[in-house]
């Protein structure tokens, strides 16, 4: 059965800290991995990763995929209280010609002032 596992499930840090969130997956015919940030409402897209070893960066956030280890990490440097959210990892497996996102349970990040 396809699955996506995120760790830790929750994390509390102080402003200015650097955090690393982990995502590992077991899926049939991996196509891509996506990271989302969910605050109070809808998940908002952060990154899509398809190639191993290529870092994607957006401001203080960055992410990289390791297909050999079947995993990805999301790094946040110099954290701010506005980074507090649930970070979701999702993977596209391919079944036939179609795929649907399989989500992990998320990592709840709390950044204290």
């Amino acid at each position, binding site marked *: 059965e396809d699955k996506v596992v995120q760790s830790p499930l929750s994390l509390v840090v102080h402003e200015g800290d650097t955090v690393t969130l982990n995502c590992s997956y077991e899926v049939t015919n991996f*196509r*891509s991995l*996506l990271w*989302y940030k*969910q605050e109070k*409402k*809808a*998940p*908002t*897209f952060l990154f*899509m990763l*398809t190639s191993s070893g290529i870092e994607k960066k957006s401001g203080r956030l960055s992410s990289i995929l390791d297909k050999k280890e079947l995993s990805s990490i999301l790094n946040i440097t110099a954290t701010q209280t506005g980074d507090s959210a*649930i970070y*979701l990892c*999702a993977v*596209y497996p*391919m079944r036939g*010609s*179609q*795929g*649907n*996102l*399989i*989500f992990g*349970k*998320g990592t*709840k990040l709390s950044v204290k002032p």
Partner: protein
Amino acid sequence: DTAVSQTPKYLVTQMGNDKSIKCEQNLGHDTMYWYKQDSKKFLKIMFSYNNKELIINETVPNRFSPKSPDKAHLNLHINSLELGDSAVYFCASSQSSSTDTQYFGPGTRLTVL
């Protein structure tokens, strides 16, 4: 301009009732989805439509029936509501049906009393 919109945002109803949630996207995407997020924040695919045709139907009770009048709309009708249907339902869309980034609507919080 809202990219993916859902109505209503909140829905409180009694067990046994029938209700609908509407979703519209103005991104010109071909594929739309319905997800259910339970109280533990686990996000799970329910249905996927590509150009008005059903392409994914996960294990969902047949009390749930999606309807896509055109590719910009995907509505979710739920018959004989049960307590366990209480959740947040998210609509999403993507350019095509495989590997593309999915953009989420704001969610509809359904509470069944």
